[in-house]
C-alpha cells in the first residue's frame, strides 16, 4: 500500500518537474534535519537548524531553478536507537536523500552506518566526534562545521601557551566526551602540559558540584570541560559558586556555543577561551546572514552548528544541480568534494577526501560585561587558525579513503 502510494507520488512529481530533472529520485530532493528538538541541545541546534536549512533552500533559488526541495524534521532525543530508527524510516519509506545536522556523537556514529548501507548522504554539522572523518569515515558522509580535534587544537594549544600546563578533565560519559577528552589530552601532552586527572559524569547531569570538588582537589591549573550544552553551563555556573576561579584555577570550555554564553550571562562566562568556526559578528557577510536568521528565529543569533547547516545544505544543492541527480549518495558526496565551497558563513573552503570540510577556525575570548554592547555581543576575536591547520591532517586520521 505504502509502496504503491509513494510510487504514485513519484510519478506525479516526475510529471510536474518534467524531463530536465528526471534523475532526481522521486522528483523531489528531500532533506531531513535530524537533531535534538527539545532537550539539552535544542537551542544550539534544534529548530534553529531547520530555519537555517530553509534559508539555504531559499537562497539557492531552488524553486526558480525548477528543483523541488522538501525539508523534513525529526527529534532524535539524543538517543542512538531513536536516531537509527528515524534514519531507516527516512531512507526506506520517506525517500529522504540527505540527513543533516545531527548533534550527539553517539547518534552520529549510528546514523553514519545506515547512510553508508543505504548509499545516501549524511552531513554532520553539530555532531563533534573527530572519528567521523577518521576511522569511521565513509564515502557517504561529510563532517562540516567543527570537530573534537579542531576544538582541542584551538583551545588546548592556546591555553597551554598562556601557562595553563596542568589539566583536569570533566568529561561527559559518552562518545563525544570521550573523543573530546582524548583529542585535547593529546594536544596538552604535545604542547608540554600534564593531565593530573579526569572524571566522567553521566550525560546529562544537573549537579556538577561533586565533580567540581574533585577537580578542585586535583590542584590542576586548568579544568577542561569535555562536555556541551546544559552540562557545560551547569559546570561553569556551579564552578563560580564553589570559588573555582577565585581559588586560582581556570576553566577551559572545550565546546561552548554562543547560546550557552547567552544563557550563562557574561558575569560568569567572561574571560572564557573558546574555539568556534563561526560567529555572527565576524564580517559583513556573517552579519548579513545572522540578521536575517535572527528575524526568523525569535531574535536569536545563529550558533556555528546552525550556520553550518545553512552552508552544508547550500553546497549539497550545488552538487545536486551540477550532477543533475541526487542519487546515489556516494556520487553526490564525491561531487561535493570536487566543487569548491563558498558561502557567506565560512567564506571559501573545500571538502577533503576524508570527508572533512575545511575553513578557518577562530579562537575567541568571552567579553567582560562592560565591553559588551548588549545581547549577543559576547566574543572578542583572539586568533585565527588557518583552514589548512585547523583540522587533523588527512594522513593522521586513519580514514581508509585516504590512500
Amino acid at each position: 500500500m505504502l509502496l504503491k502510494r509513494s510510487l504514485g507520488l513519484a510519478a506525479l512529481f516526475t510529471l510536474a518537474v518534467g524531463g530536465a530533472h528526471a534523475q532526481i529520485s522521486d522528483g523531489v530532493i528531500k532533506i531531513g534535519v535530524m537533531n535534538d528538538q527539545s532537550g539539552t541541545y535544542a537551542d544550539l541546534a534544534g529548530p534553529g537548524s531547520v530555519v537555517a536549512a530553509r534559508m539555504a533552500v531559499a537562497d539557492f533559488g531552488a524553486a526558480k531553478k525548477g528543483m523541488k526541495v522538501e525539508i523534513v524534521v525529526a527529534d532524535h532525543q539524543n538517543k542512538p536507537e531513536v536516531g537509527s530508527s528515524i534514519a531507516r524510516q527516512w531512507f526506506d519509506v520517506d525517500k529522504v536523500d540527505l540527513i543533516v545536522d545531527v548533534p550527539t556523537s553517539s547518534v552520529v556514529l549510528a546514523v553514519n552506518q545506515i547512510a553508508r548501507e543505504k548509499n545516501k548522504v549524511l552531513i554532520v554539522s553539530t555532531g563533534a566526534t573527530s572519528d567521523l572523518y577518521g576511522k569511521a569515515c565513509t564515502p557517504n558522509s561529510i563532517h562540516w562545521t567543527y570537530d573534537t580535534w579542531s576544538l582541542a587544537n584551538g583551545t588546548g594549544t592556546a591555553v597551554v601557551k598562556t601557562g595553563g600546563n596542568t589539566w583536569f578533565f570533566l568529561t561527559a560519559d559518552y562518545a563525544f566526551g570521550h573523543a573530546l577528552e582524548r583529542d585535547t589530552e593529546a594536544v596538552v601532552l604535545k604542547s608540554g602540559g600534564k593531565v593530573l586527572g579526569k572524571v566522567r559524569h553521566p550525560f546529562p547531569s544537573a549537579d556538577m558540584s561533586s565533580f567540581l570538588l574533585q577537580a578542585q582537589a586535583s590542584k590542576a591549573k586548568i579544568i577542561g570541560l569535555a562536555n556541551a550544552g546544559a552540562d557545560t553551563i551547569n559546570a561553569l555556573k556551579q564552578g563560580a559558586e564553589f570559588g573555582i576561579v577565585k581559588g586560582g584555577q581556570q576553566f577551559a570550555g572545550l565546546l561552548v556555543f554562543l547560546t550557552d554564553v547567552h544563557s550563562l550571562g557574561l558575569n560568569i562566562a567572561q574571560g572564557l577561551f573558546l574555539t568556534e568556526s563561526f560567529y555572527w559578528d565576524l564580517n559583513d557577510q556573517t552579519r548579513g546572514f545572522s540578521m536575517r536568521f535572527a528575524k526568523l528565529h525569535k531574535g536569536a543569533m545563529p550558533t556555528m552548528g546552525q550556520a553550518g547547516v545553512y552552508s552544508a545544505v547550500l553546497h549539497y544543492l550545488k552538487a545536486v544541480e551540477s550532477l543533475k541527480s541526487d542519487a546515489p549518495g556516494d556520487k553526490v558526496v564525491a561531487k561535493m568534494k570536487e566543487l569548491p565551497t563558498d558561502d557567506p558563513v565560512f567564506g571559501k573552503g573545500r571538502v577533503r577526501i576524508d570527508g572533512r570540510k575545511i575553513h578557518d577556525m577562530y579562537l575567541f575570548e568571552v567579553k567582560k560585561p562592560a565591553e559588551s554592547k548588549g545581547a549577543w555581543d559576547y566574543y572578542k576575536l583572539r586568533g585565527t587558525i588557518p583552514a589548512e591547520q585547523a583540522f587533523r591532517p588527512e594522513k593522521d586520521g586513519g580514514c581508509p579513503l585516504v590512500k
Partner: protein
Amino acid sequence: MTEIFGIPTQALFGQLLIGLINGSFYALLSLGLAIIFGLLNIINFAHGAQYMMGAFCAWFLLNKLGVSYWWALALAPIVVGATGMVIERLMLARLYKLDHLYGLLLTFGLALIIQGLFRHEFGSTGLPYPMPKLLEGGQNLGFMFLPNYRAWVVAFSVAVCIVTWFTIEKTKLGSYLRAATENPQLVQAFGINVPRMVTLTYGFGVGLAALAGVMAAPIYSVNPLMGEHLIIVVFAVVVIGGMGSIMGSIVTGFVLGLVEGLTKVFYPEASNTVIFIIMAIVLMIRPAGLFGTQK
C-alpha cells in the same frame, strides 16, 4: 593524610556534604509528593513541572518586576500553589473515586503540556538567575570550600521539613487532615469542610515543589526541563521511603543524597543509577518501602 578506600578523608567529607545538599532538594520534593499521596491518594507526576514553575516564577519576579530572591521565596510557592489548587478543583477532584492510575495519567499529561509550553516560550538552554547578594561567597572549612548559598539550602530545607512534619503529625490541624484521609464522611459530619482542606493540601504540596524550585534557581540554570530529570529520582526516593510516609520521605531524601554523593567519588559513572538499584532492592525486601506500612 588519612585515606578511606584510597580516597583522602577530607575529600570524602566534602562529597558527603554535597550529598547532603542534594539530599535537601530530594527531601523537599519527596515531602510534597508524600503529602499529596498520603492525603489525596494522587500520584502527582506534575511535581517536577511545578518545581520548574517555581524557578521560572522567581526568574519572572526578578527580571520583570524587580522582586528579590527573598520575596520570591514566599511569593512563588503561593502563586504556583494557587495554580495547583485550580488544577485540583477543576480536574483532580473528579478522579478521587477512580483508580490511582487516572490521577497519575492526568498529572503526567499536565506535566508534559506545562513543560512543552515553557520550552516553546523560553527554549531549552535555560535562563540565568543570579545568586542573592547576601549569600554570595563561601566559607573555607579546611576540607572544602562551602558556598554560603548551599549551606543556606541545607539549613532552610531542614527547617521546612521539620515544620511540615510537626504540623501534620503533632498539631490539631494535622490531626484533622489525617482523619480526613482515613474517613472523609465522618470528618465532614463533624462540620469540617473536607474538600476545601484537600484543595489546600494539594496547594501546599505544590507550593513545596515551587519552593524547591526557587532555591534551585541560583544553582542550576532556570530551565524548562529542570524538573523532568529530577522527578524520576524523587519518585524513587518516595518509593524507597514508603509512599505517603512523611518522615520516611524526609529521611530517605537526605540519606539517598548522601549515598549518591559517595557513588560520585567511588564510581561516578553509576551515580545516575545507584538510587534505582537501591529502589529495586528495597522493593524486593520491603515492598511497602522502608518507612511505609502495608495497607
